[in-house]
């Protein structure tokens, strides 16, 4: 990897600018690419987002904005999960320019379960298995073209995944 002497401060400035633009004015500014900047900032493990209790706070911590429901996001999860320790959840979407996909369970002690970074060339389809403390909504967030789209499905849990 090659970097110039002023490469590091320039990048940092860009990240700060990008974050500011996204937070204050949303998207749609073409002078530079806030989406790419945000994605780069996300390469680090998002420790704070995983510590948030509620789903809304976790999404805000992770992306800095809110998601809108979309029927282009297809969330596949069981109606009833007999064992909350292993709930198979998968998502696929017809949206393009997907950069990340996140899974949340609204009533878990910490709502955010997993964040997947989707680089160009990787398909926006992910399957995984989550723990769920009790019956609640599974929320999936798809970040595509700098916007957030969500799908939600309630999963009834008969035996919680948090043990005693």
């Amino acid at each position, binding site marked *: 990897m090659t970097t110039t002497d002023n490469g590091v401060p320039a990048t940092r400035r860009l990240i700060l600018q990008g974050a500011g633009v996204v937070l204050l004015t949303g998207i749609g500014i073409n002078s530079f690419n806030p989406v790419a900047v945000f994605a780069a900032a996300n390469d680090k493990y998002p420790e704070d987002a995983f510590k948030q209790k509620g789903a809304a706070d976790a999404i805000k911590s992770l992306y800095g904005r809110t998601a809108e429901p979309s029927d282009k996001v297809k969330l596949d999860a069981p109606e009833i999960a007999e064992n909350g320790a292993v709930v198979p959840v998968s998502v696929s979407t017809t949206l393009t320019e997907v950069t990340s996909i996140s899974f949340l*369970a609204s009533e*878990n002690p910490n709502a955010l379960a997993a964040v997947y*970074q989707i680089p160009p060339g990787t398909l926006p389809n992910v*399957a995984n298995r*989550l723990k769920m403390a009790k019956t609640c909504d599974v929320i999936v967030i798809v970040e595509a073209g700098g916007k957030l789209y969500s799908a939600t499905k309630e999963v009834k849990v008969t035996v919680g995944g948090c043990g005693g």
Partner: protein
Amino acid sequence: MASTIRVRAILSGETTEVQVLIQHPMDSGFVKDDKGETIPPHFIQQLTFEHDGRNVFVADWGAAVSKDPYVKFSFKGGNKGDDLKISWVDNKGGTDTTTAKIQ
């Protein structure tokens, strides 16, 4: 020690489907053991898949991912016989790496 990571990467057309199964307790920190003592959190935080010098998939995980985690994804650009490098690191600094061939 045998690897904790089991991988299957199969090329179909131009898409490589990757399935991985990892042996890991994924303790959440909310569960008590038989003696009533809380089992401290111990879970994988980041799992990366590298092909041809770049990451094709990165998973950031919290404690709510199931024990012995499974994940499936697909990417374009792989060829039969290519190496796919998979590594994880957990919250205690534990780590494991393996390399699989695309079939």
